[in-house]
């Protein structure tokens, strides 16, 4: 019985060892290509993750709210009627999601949904002594909201506590108002019967990662916000977090079609960011493809030369009874071996580059600019593609070798 590729392996490795300098040079070439592709992939992945973490650190993946108020025509125009009216858009006011208590368990049951948090959002003013700051009022249930944005991990002072009369405020807002944990501030919304609440006690300060948010955010219990905004028992938004952030838009579109609400994915709310990320991904893809093409051409050129150099040996092997398939596999294996060895060295080089980046590219605080990690799956993927490229690069030379006329090759 034919032992699997024993003959081809032996001849392929000997051919590679025989042309040692050529082999070493092309393996270095493949390693350099793999290192560049792996490093860039890890860098861009880290950069994008960092950007997304910062962006989505303070917002839900999908937000559900009531549809915007629209001006309805008093009478539907008759068919064929030309309407020459200019309609002023209505000013939007805080409105509660109808029947939101029933919608929450419905959303929680959807596949891929990890958390749903009801929220009351409104605008207001924070007052302390002479200081007045405009604020974004956020009323939440602490446990649920924590699962949406990881609030506890973002606290810079105080404890995550949101009892009646408590409030968690942004770090910059606290600085602007001159308050610390335990101090009290007044909040006014300027509307509703509970327009002013006295003695909101600051239990914690939060850093949401975006200065503008830190300057304006005041997080209060849901009931407090309902009173301040004038929506007793109501909520303005349902925040949804997903396992896979990239499925947000699809889910939003699906929900918008099925439910009578306005549903917005984070991509829609951050369209320019998504465009930038896409452009980055495309650029990375182009770089990866170009590098891989260079790797393929490098391996192919070396193997083409090898076929010419080894014509006589190929002729001998064919005369001795090596089949065309065996000769083909000898050269395909050479491509695979060069690709695989280059991949292993390239991945090691990439790890070294990432280590150097983490050590040398530091921010003002002395910490790495952002975290780059090389996931084993990415390393395996790049190495697998490079090895496959090695095999593909060998196809043309291998076919040429297999088709050599043994009688002519021996006469060379």
């Amino acid at each position, binding site marked *: 019985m034919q032992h699997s590729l*024993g003959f081809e392996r032996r001849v392929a490795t000997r051919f590679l060892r025989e042309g040692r300098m050529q082999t070493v040079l092309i393996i270095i070439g493949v390693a350099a290509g793999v290192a560049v592709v792996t490093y860039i992939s890890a860098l861009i992945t880290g950069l994008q993750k960092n950007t997304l973490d910062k962006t989505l650190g303070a917002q839900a993946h999908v937000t559900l709210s009531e549809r915007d108020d629209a001006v309805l025509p008093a009478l539907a125009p008759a068919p064929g009627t030309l309407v020459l009216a200019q309609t002023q858009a209505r000013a939007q006011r805080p409105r509660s999601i109808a029947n939101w208590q029933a919608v929450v368990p419905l959303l929680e049951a959807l596949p891929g949904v990890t958390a749903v948090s009801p929220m009351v959002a409104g605008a207001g003013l924070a007052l302390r002594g002479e200081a007045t700051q405009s604020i974004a009022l956020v009323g939440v249930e602490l446990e649920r909201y924590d699962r949406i944005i990881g609030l506890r991990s973002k606290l810079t002072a105080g404890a995550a506590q949101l009892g009646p009369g408590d409030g968690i405020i942004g770090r910059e807002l606290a600085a602007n108002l001159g308050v610390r944990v335990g101090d009290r501030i007044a909040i006014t919304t300027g509307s509703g019967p509970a327009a002013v609440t006295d003695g909101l006690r600051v239990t914690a300060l939060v850093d949401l990662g975006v200065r503008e948010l830190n300057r304006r955010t005041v997080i209060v219990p849901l009931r407090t916000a309902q009173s301040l905004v004038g929506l007793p028992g109501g909520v303005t938004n349902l925040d949804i977090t997903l396992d896979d952030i990239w499925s947000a838009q699809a889910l939003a579109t699906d929900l918008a079609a099925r439910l009578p609400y306005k549903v917005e994915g984070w991509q829609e709310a951050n369209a320019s960011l998504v465009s930038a990320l896409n452009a980055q991904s495309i650029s990375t893809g182009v770089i990866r493809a170009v590098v891989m093409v260079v790797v393929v051409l490098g391996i192919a050129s070396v193997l083409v030369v090898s076929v010419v150099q080894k014509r006589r040996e190929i002729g001998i092997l064919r005369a001795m009874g090596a089949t*065309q398939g065996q000769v083909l596999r000898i050269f395909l294996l050479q491509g695979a071996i060069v690709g695989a060895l280059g991949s292993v060295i390239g991945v090691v080089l990439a790890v070294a580059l990432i280590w150097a980046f983490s050590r040398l590219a530091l921010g003002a605080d002395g910490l790495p600019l952002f975290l780059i990690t090389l996931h084993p799956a990415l390393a395996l993927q790049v190495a697998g593609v490079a090895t496959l490229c090695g095999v593909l690069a060998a196809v043309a030379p291998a076919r040429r070798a297999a088709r050599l006329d043994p009688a002519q090759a021996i006469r060379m």
Partner: protein
Amino acid sequence: MPAHKAPDTPLLELGEISKSYNLDLPNEAEVLHSLSLRIARGEFVALIGPSGSGKSTLLNIIGLLERATAGSYRIGGEETRELNDAALTLLRRATLGFVFQFHHLLPAFTALENVTLPALMREGRVTPAQRERALAMLHSVGLQDATAKRPGELSGGMQQRVAIARALVLEPPLVLADEPTGNLDTQSANEVFDVMRRMHAELKVSFLIVTHDPRLAARCDRVIELIDGRIARDAPVPTSTPDEAKHAAP
């Protein structure tokens, strides 16, 4: 000239073989003309003739490295004309051993590895028994001390003896040798030829040897002479003492 009578069960049989190059082109050239030939098992045959007489072409056709333009070629009773390249390759592997003028060993392999190559090619591995067999073959050709050496470290005669061991290691029915001594000095040529005769006697393998050297042809059992692509002579060599044959005039 009457053809030499071969035994009734020929190892190979060529019937009306013709070979043309540049077929249907203005410069078409027929190098073999309706040539018929039989070689029996165990024969030791010399193929001689001047340069350009078609010896190498005939050897390539017999070695299944080229196809005849017309005629039939049976090897071991099997007609080869209709076989595809893959089948021809497998038949070549099973039936034929080759010894070339320029040794044609694989330079990256040691002498022993070159000799075990046919087994490796056939089965994908070399069993201990096959390795022992290869060592015994190298011993038979007097190279027991050179098994680990690469071809570049061996003399021309030694390389040719390795090539003979390689051609014979799987004991094919027929060994084809194209000017096996053509690139060697007289002493090495005699040594190599002696090895072939001895292996022929031991293994009963047929040999077809292309040679320019009439002294070596005279030491074969049968001589086929090709002139202008036709068999001009096919006759047994008169029995003579080895010493007479060795010193026969060129």
